[in-house]
Structure formats: structure tokens, C-alpha cells
């Protein structure tokens, strides 16, 4: 077979596999919801019988695991589908970025997370943005960079944002990113499905995202100040 033809067929096959995977993930997500409802039913039944804390702990971990899996699958399904953007003209990017400062300081297990140092240039950064989606994207990337840093007390991740002509440049720095991000690579060099979804959100705003060993950078177009 001619190499170019083979490549086209590979591409078509990959697309088919992608569609099939998406359908499977979608179905699995629904099944997980059913399993979780069984687990919560079981937990409800255990409580009045005063069952041992070990049984309750196991059911609790089962529910948390199912929740986590369902969350990952939801993100994958959203990543595979077109985004529904609701643009608002002249939205203040600075306020969107400030939302990362409100991320919790501890993880679900109660462990202290690295603190976040925000450095935002004091200039106008207005743009045509979907605020809630960009908040989700910034939070996801920040969480990802946080997870690259050890949870030792005093560790921080930083987010620098400045304006360059008609775009905002956002730069996250934390631990060594490259090894994590090479493991699950997409076209942006970004890692988990949540980060990939974040990149997709930024790209849908006519922005772009890049990853290297030391940092993640994102560019977003701003309204001209002229």
C-alpha cells in the first residue's frame, strides 16, 4: 500500500477508535453512576446497623474511587465534544485569574497543598471570554502544576501574568513538569485530561498553551487598549 494512503487509513481508523472509545467511556460513566448509587444505598443500610467502622470506611473509599473515576470520564467526554462557549465582551481576565487564589489549601485527604503565589501585572486585561470556563481552565492547570510540587511545608507554585501587546501571557512554575507531561502527551504537551480540557478551553478562546520541563505557558488574546 502506498504510504500516504496507509496514513489516511490509519487516521480514519484512529478516528473510529476515538469515537468507539468515547461511546464506551460514556456508557462506563453511566454504569459508574449506577454502581455509586448501589454503594450509597449500602452505606445507608450499614449506618443504622452500627456496622464496624472498617466496613463503613471501605464503602466510603469505594464511593470516593467511583466518584474520582466518574470525574475523569466526565472530563474525557467533555474533551471529546465541542465546547459551548458563552462569550462576554470586555471580561476582566485579572478577576478570572484571581479565582485560583480561592483554590483549597488542603487536598481531600487533609494534606496541605503547596501555596500559590500570584503575580499579575497591574494593567487592563479585558477580553471576549467565557468567564466560568476560563476559571475552570486556570484552576485545572494550577492544580496540575501544584501536583508536580512536593507537599512539604513552604513549597509554592507561582503564576505570573503580564500583558504583551494584545495578548495576556500566563506562566505557571512549580516542580519538574516534563516527565509528567511526556507520559500523557497531547498536541500542547499538556498532561492529564483536565489539563488537556483546560488547553482546549484556552484554544477555543483563540489562545494557545505550551508546556516544557519548567513551566506551562498560556496566551490569550485581549481587547486592544487603543
Amino acid at each position, binding site marked *: 500500500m502506498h504510504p500516504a494512503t496507509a496514513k489516511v487509513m490509519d487516521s480514519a481508523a484512529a478516528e473510529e477508535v476515538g469515537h468507539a472509545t468515547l461511546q464506551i467511556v460514556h*456508557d462506563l460513566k453511566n454504569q*459508574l*453512576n*449506577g454502581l455509586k*448509587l*448501589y454503594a450509597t444505598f449500602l452505606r445507608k443500610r450499614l449506618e443504622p446497623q452500627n456496622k464496624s467502622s472498617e466496613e463503613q470506611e471501605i464503602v466510603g473509599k469505594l464511593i470516593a474511587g467511583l466518584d474520582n473515576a466518574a470525574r475523569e470520564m466526565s472530563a474525557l467526554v467533555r474533551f471529546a465534544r465541542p465546547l459551548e462557549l458563552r*462569550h462576554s465582551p470586555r471580561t476582566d481576565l485579572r478577576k478570572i485569574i484571581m479565582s485560583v487564589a480561592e483554590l483549597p489549601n488542603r487536598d481531600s485527604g487533609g494534606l496541605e497543598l503547596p501555596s500559590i503565589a500570584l503575580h499579575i501585572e497591574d494593567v487592563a486585561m479585558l477580553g471576549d471570554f467565557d468567564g466560568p470556563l476560563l476559571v475552570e481552565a486556570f484552576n485545572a492547570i494550577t492544580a496540575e502544576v501544584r501536583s508536580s510540587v512536593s507537599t512539604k511545608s513552604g513549597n509554592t507554585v507561582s503564576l505570573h501574568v503580564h500583558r504583551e501587546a494584545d495578548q495576556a501571557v500566563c506562566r505557571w512554575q512549580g516542580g519538574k513538569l516534563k516527565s509528567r507531561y511526556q507520559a500523557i502527551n497531547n498536541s500542547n504537551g499538556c498532561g492529564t485530561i483536565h489539563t488537556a480540557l483546560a488547553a482546549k478551553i484556552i484554544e477555543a478562546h483563540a489562545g494557545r498553551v505550551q508546556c516544557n520541563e519548567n513551566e506551562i505557558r498560556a496566551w490569550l488574546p485581549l481587547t486592544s487598549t487603543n
Partner: protein
Amino acid sequence: MTKSKSHDERILVVDDEPMMSDSLRRHLEDEGYSVDTAANGAEAIDLFDGGAHHLVICDLQLPDMDGLTLLRHMKDAKPNTEVIVVTGYGSVQTAVEATKAGAFYFVEKPFDFEELLPLVEKALERRELMAETESMRRQLSTRAEYFNIIGSSKQMQTIYETIESVAKSDANVLIVGESGTGKELIANAIHYNSLRAKKPFIKVNCAALPKELIESELFGHTKGAFTGAHADKEGLVQHAAGGSLMLDEIAEMPVELQPKLLRVLQERTCRKIGSEKSYPVDFRLITSTNRMPADAIRDGLLRDDLFYRISTITIHVPPLRERMEDIQLLTDHFLKLYAEKYERAIAGVSQSAYQRLFSHPWPGNVRELQNVIERAILLAKSEHIEPVDLPFDNGSAGAAAPTLAWDVPPNMTLEDIEKFVIERTLQRTGGNKQKAANMLGIYRPRLYSKIKKYKIGPEPISAT
């Protein structure tokens, strides 16, 4: 295991994923409900048509049928049955379509039973309330009056239908219409038709509150949050707990405050000014504006993300000039109302006065008509309202002299006008109170009490 609770309600769960329907069945039965399950649309229709289900929990994606088609079938066949739609992947458009088709709520998978149970309870509660309302409504022979909204025109009938279907849900409603069209009455009808009817209905006019105060009024503040904040204060969103919040003239809300409102609507939590802690809020939002939303967005007065959030359902109230067929009905209503209030024996409106009413453009809409009729009731000298009693009368030949004789000075209150009319009538009768009472269409004792009330002097009144 014995059930802790017992209900009469029967629920149908429709989902092609057996684990979903079975686990939901167990949870619901544990709460005391009777539950049937169906794995596809055809099976669901068979069970639904043959059974008396009070609530259906229906997946949107079924192997043999679109869930919206199933929803429409159910609402057509038994409109009182509530339907909660669940879906594995929801878009805003689908949610809006499901709500328009009559869904009580739209739930996205994955969900917890703890999230679903309150919705089930609310849906069943509403169904019961709607059945009661329906029974009361059947007693009305016409649909001309609906929760004090008067109008039998096609536009108003459509609005009544929208109110009925919208009130059933917790969807945010935006009411758009010119000043005086009755937006507040529509908001009242939505709230008092809803499951929240027994809870507070808080109304805030965004244009009336000073810009600096509105955030504190809406969301509350803590002591010392700003100069003058001497004590903690609850916000109106807290006062509206469990009920509805109406934000009148939403386009007048300071644009910098709109993201905060948006966040409250998205997260259902709120933070007082000066506080780090968030508190949960539970209210249904009704907003209104006399501006066209597109214009308000274009002019930068209304953020479009907030607009999308508050306008799940938009009700456009037509100006009076676009529903002239309602003028007679409205006139009769106000005539009866004010004739009783002012104890005037006014039988109706003359044909020529009606012609004037129909030819007026009504820039002030129903409110203007209400004021015109109230004024006419006070000024009318016969048992019918005549063109001369209407403020926009241009002066027909026969009416010219009386118009001048009864000219009302500006800035008068209704009481001033009443006093003025009694004085003028006494002038016309040369102080004869029986004649004056006859002319005014009231009994003589009533006239005496008015004379006493307004301290109209006993001295002979000289004619002007």
C-alpha cells in the same frame, strides 16, 4: 427490611442502564415510594399509559426513542405528571428544550441520590399543588382574569400558558416589557403558582437602590465591613430563602455587581461583604426589564453571561397598543374597582368615550389606562363616562364648556381631586347637598361625611 416511610406516590424510572434503574428503584423504595422501571421508550409508554404514575425519572438517551419525545408524549397524555430528566451529557440547549417541553428538572449524570431526593419530593409536592390549582381554575368560566392579570387577547393567553408551565419549574424567568405593562403581576403569578408560594417573595427594584447600597442590600454585610456597617446584616437573598427573589429593572444593576450575582446563581452560595464564609442560598430568580435585552447588552448595561443565566425562560409582555382587544375588558375591570372604591354610581363608558379609548396609543400602557379610568370615575357627571371625562379629550363641540369648567389643576392628589369635585358640585347646586349628592351619584350621608372629612366650609359658595 421495613420501610421507614410510606407514600401513595408511584414513580416510573426509565433508563436503559439496568444498574441505574435498579439502584434508583432500591433507593426510592427505601424512601417509601412505589417504583416501576422501564429499559426503553416503548416499555416506558406501555407502563405509563397503563399506570397512574405521579412522577417519571427519565433518561434522555434511550435505545429506541429520544427522551424528549417520550417527555412530550407523557406531558401530552397526562399533563399533571411531573418528569425529571436525567442525561449523561447535557448541553444548555437540551436543558432549555427539556424545560420548555415541561420537564420539572434537568439532572446531569453522575448524580448522588441525596441530590435527587429533594427534587423528587419537590416535584411531587408541586404536582399536588398544581392539581389543587387546576381544580380551582376549572371554576372560572373564562380565562380573562388570571391572578389579577386582565386580558383575553391571544398574546395574554400565551402568557398565561407560559406562566403555568414555567411556574412548575425552578427555572429563572426574565420578564421583558414596557413600563406599565404589568410585569410585576406576572412575577406574582409565577411565584404564587409555584411550590415556593408559601415562602417569601422578595422584590427589589435595582433602579431604586443607590449604587453603593445594592450589594449590601442583596448579599448582606458583616459588622465593620465598611464605614457605617455598625452591625451584621442579612442580605435579601437570605430573606428570600425557600421563596422567590424578583430583581426589577435588572439592566439598572451596576455592571460590576453582575458577576457576583452570576456566581451566586451558579454556585447557589453567597458571601456577605466583609466575610470569608459562604452561606447556601435557595431562591428562585425572577427578573424584569423595560429595556430590550439585546440593547442593554450592546450598551454594556447587562452582561451577556448573566443574561443567559437569568433568561432560561423569557416572557415578553406586549404593550397595550398591541392588544387593543383587551381595552374593553381592562376598562370594565377598573371601572368596577374604582366605582366601588369611590362609591360612585357609574354604569359604564359611553360609546363615544370608548372610541377615544381605542384611538389612544397608550404610551403608559395598562397603568395609564388605570389612572385614566380612576380619574374619569371621580370626574364623571353622569352615570356614564363621557369623552369629556378623559384627560386626552381634545374638546368636542358639545363638551368644550364643561371641560373648561372642570379643569383640574396639576399636582393634585386623588383626595384633592375628590374635594375639588365636591366643592364644584356644591357650587353648581348653590349649596344644595341633596342635589349635589344626586349629581355625584352618592347618598346624602356619604356626602356629609366627605364634607366633614375635607372640611368644606358651610358658608354659601359663590359660583365662579
